[in-house]
Every structure is written in C-alpha cells, then in structure tokens.
C-alpha cells in the first residue's frame, strides 16, 4: 500500500462563462503585473490554485491536464503563415504551470507534466505517490476551447486544483491510498472500474467527497478526515 496525506487544497471553479480577460481582472492581485497580461486562462487558474500552497524549495510537482493550452494552441494555429513566437511558446506543455512559477521566479527540482484521458487521474496520482520528496503538489486543470471543442479536442469547462501531499498523517484533511494488485495472475485485461476524470477529481476535491475505484494495477481511494 502506498499512501499520502492531504495537507493543503485549493480548487478554482470559475463561473461557467468566465473569459481569460475576466479571470485576469479577478485574479490580478495574485500575479506580478508584467506577467499578468500574457497569461492564459489556464495559466491564471493554475497559478491561482498554487498561490496558497506555501511551497518549499525541495517540493516536487505533478501536473495533469488532458487538453492543456487550448486557446494558445488555437491562436497559434491561426497565426500561420507568420507563426507567433509568443503563442508558440505559450502553447507548449506545461506552459500553464510555467507561467505562474516564472512570474514568481520559483524554481523547483522535479516537475512531472502528465497528459492523457481515460486513466489520467490514476497516472497522475501514482506519479505523485512515487515521488520521494517530502512534499509533492498535484496540480490539474483545463480551460474551455472554441473550435477545438467542436472536434472533441478541448475541455467544456475551465477549472484548476492544487493538492499538497505529504507523508505526515498528523493534521491531514484527507488521504489518497493505492494498493497494488499482486504481481501474479495478471492477464492484461482490465476488470476494474472507470477511473475518475480530471473534472471528477476536481469536483471531489472541492466537495471533499470520497472516491474509490479499481484500476491501473490496483485499488484506489481518496478519503477525508
């Protein structure tokens, strides 16, 4: 069994129709002015979720997103045949995390940007659980797309979350637990349950709702104190 405890939690769930400009205005106090004007909606939400995480220099970070920088990608594609250098660099994974950390000049030793869909939450949690750093922050988020949404290549909504995991049980508000399946008898076939989506995880974190499922070589649970 591998277990970590929740010691800080922040979930950003903006109003459904919030634009990047509106988020910029709402969250302006959290970022240096010079950086603010170039930040994307996802970068703002992720940066805001991280704002209160009270980072330490040795912390590690896992970043999970299925669609990442959708709007920068759409706008970069629209800049051809004279591609925009700013939109190019902003569209590259894991720009959303880098926007906030570069604005705050906050180095970190290990950053694990993960993408995917069906098993993304499992993979992100497993990466966080295997991180030997005393403290590991799991971040996730999406922003709403425009034309890419019409093709199933973007999120329908915007959100972000940051969870600080440590190995300290005392004063924890929750815990995540993974019990690996036995090494013998595996067939490669998955008889488990669907893994929660990133949006499901964000909602469970916001509501402090427990989650339990079987998948990725073992059993998973998120429980609250």
């Amino acid at each position, binding site marked *: 069994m591998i277990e970590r405890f929740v010691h800080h939690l922040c979930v950003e769930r903006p109003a459904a129709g919030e634009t990047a400009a509106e988020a910029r205005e709402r969250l302006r106090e959290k970022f240096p002015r010079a950086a603010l004007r170039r930040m994307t909606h996802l970068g703002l939400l992720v940066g805001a979720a991280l704002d209160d995480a009270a980072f330490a220099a*040795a912390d590690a970070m896992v970043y999970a997103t*299925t*669609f*990442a920088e959708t709007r920068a*990608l759409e706008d*970069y*594609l*629209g800049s*051809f*045949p*004279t*591609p*925009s*250098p700013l939109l*190019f*660099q*902003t569209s*590259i*994974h*894991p*720009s959303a995390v*880098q926007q906030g*950390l*570069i604005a*705050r*000049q*906050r*180095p*970190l*030793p*290990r*950053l*694990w*940007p*993960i*993408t*995917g*869909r*069906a*098993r*993304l939450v499992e*993979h992100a949690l*497993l*990466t966080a659980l*295997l991180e*030997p*750093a005393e403290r590991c922050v799991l971040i996730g988020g999406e922003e709403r797309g425009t034309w890419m949404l019409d*093709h199933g*290549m973007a999120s329908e909504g915007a959100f972000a979350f940051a969870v600080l995991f440590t190995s300290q049980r005392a004063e924890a508000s929750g815990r995540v637990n993974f019990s*690996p*399946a036995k*090494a013998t008898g*595996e*067939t*490669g*076939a*998955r008889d488990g349950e669907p893994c929660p989506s990133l949006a499901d995880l964000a909602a469970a974190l916001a509501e402090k709702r427990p989650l339990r499922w079987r998948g*990725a*070589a*073992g059993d998973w649970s998120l429980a609250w104190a």
Partner: protein
Amino acid sequence: MNPAVDQLSVRVAACEGLTPFGDAAATSEALLAGRVALQRRAVLGRDGGDAVPLALLGPMDETLPPRWLAALRGLAAKIPPGKWGSPRQPVIVSSSNYGVGSLHAFTRDHDPRHVQHGTPFACVELLRRELGWGEDVQIFSHACVTAHLGLAHAARLLHAGVADRVLVFSFDFVSPFVAGGFHSLKILNGAMPAPYAAREIGAIGLGDGAAFAVLTRAADGGDGGVLAAHALHNEMHHFTGNQPDGAGFATCATAISEAARGRRVWVKGHGTGTLEAGRLEAEAFARAFPGAPLVSWKGSLGHTLGSCGLVELAVALAALRAPAKRIPGTVGSAAPTFVDTVALAPFDARAFDGVVLTSNAFGGAHAAMLLTHD
C-alpha cells in the same frame, strides 16, 4: 545524497532508435563517419518559407494516415515480446509533439480526419491500437526533457514493485507547426547548427527521431547498460532563456556528478547549437566533470525535441556495443569551442565506464542521467 537525484538503478534490457540514417547502429556509424543528416528545406513544407536545417525521414507535410505511423510500426517491430500496456508491463510514451502537426494540417486543409490524432491522448490511442498495447499507457509531456521523465518514472515503477518491465517509447516528427514555431523564435534559421562552437550566430536544426527502451530491475541481470541515476531541475526563470549565471545548468550538472563520483565518464550534452545555452551548458559540465569529453550529435541529427534523450541514449548504447567502441564526436561543429573538453572527433569508449546524457527544455528545464557501461 542529493535530494534532486534518483539513484534507482535499472537495466536497459533493450533499446533501439530511428533517425534519418536508420537504426541506432546505422546512426552511430554515420556519426562516426562525420555525416550530417540535416538538409536545408522549406520551413513550412509545401507552403514554402525560408530554407532551414531539417533531418527528416520523409517529406515533412502531414499525411493521412500520419507520416509517423508507418515508421513507428517498423521501430515497434523490434520491441521484445511482452504484454505491453498490461498492469505489470506498462508503457510510458514520451514526446513533445505527439500528433500536433495534424492540427496545422487541419487548419490548412479542413480535412477532419487530421484532428482524429491531434491531441496527445488521441495520438497515443491510435498508436496503442496499432501496436496492440493494453490500456496501461502513461503519457508524459515536458517539451525537450520528456524522454528523461519517462525513463526516470519507469525506474520508480520498477523499484516500487508496481511493474516488472517497463517500455518507454518516444517519438517526435517535425511538422510545419513546430518548425514554424522555432523559426519564429529565430533560432531555427538558415545557418547549420555547430554545437558548442564559439561563433557569432547561433542556430539549431530539427530532426525526426524515435526510440524505445525496455527497462528491468538491475538485479534481473542481462547485458544491457545500467541507468544508474537521474537528475532533474527546473529554473522557472524565463520561458526560452536560462539564468544568465548558469545556475540552472550547474544545479543539474552538480547533482548528477555526485551520482557519478568515482567513475570515468564522458558527457553526451544537449548542445542544440544555440550560443548562450551552449556556453552555459559546456562551462557547467566542464566544471562538474573536469576533463570529461563533451559531445553533441544535434549538429547532424538535429534536435529530436522531446525524444532526444531516448534517441541519443539508443545511439550511445549502439556505439558502446559496436566492436570498435568508438564514440562519435560533435559532428558539424568546429574550433574554437566554448570549452576545450568539447570532443570534435570520435574517441575510444574503453577509457570510460559511464556516460552522462543531458537534455534541456523551455522554462529552464534540465535533465541528466547516468548510464554505466562497465
């Protein structure tokens, strides 16, 4: 022990690569002969633009099915048999591009078939079905250090006992999307890259590349090299620049040097051909590994982006496994170089028992791994 270093030894049970020269052995031989795969081609493919150095496995324009699929099928045929993508034999896919080039093709041609593999998850899903992998396929994406993350995470899975073997599979194929982006940043220009050369204009080239490695626990035995340590660091100083004092490079170089203490190593550097990053990297590794030869192969192969860590690992292993045990020099570069440890010509690997392989990425991301080959 430095907390920034994972010292979780794993064996490279199998490793192969693909570049415009062919497989890893053919690539190593071509580099030893001083051949350059980069050729000047239109930056936007059929839409023209400036001629820039690209090393391609075929025409750059996106096709249906995507041009990388057939090449990856050929590479995957060399993967040892296994229940890949099953819980105990997971797959880690690492890339910085995935199928993103097809999004540019869609916006240009409006053919909706292009978008079917435009996102990383859809691209990997196509690959998973084509190659018969199960559902346990994890996807990393951290620009040009991605392959290092895949290898480092694989070592963690093995040491945690949650996997018996891990397949790390990496590919990046150049498209107008990415070539246009680097051209807009002015580092992909008309000049050929000359890694670590002290000259007036910096330049990179881009290349197609793919590779895989099968990792097992070191105790499982075998004749492959051992990946003994990984070091990672993220400056978060600037999107496309580094801390001007080289502190980011020094942090990573120092960390991996501690893991390599007592060994006689050579260094396969990142060395894209940019001036400032090249100088900072060369100086940092010359300090951390006094006298160790430093090479880069991107002056010939171009920068294979998120896959460069694994492609160049495959080339290094092929060079070490060849009877002559000669390591290719820094093809495409010339004196004067930033430091005198830059190896412009091939050298004998038998004087060494380890190699440090490094990569860097946007955001000041640094990665280094130690491969022991005694």
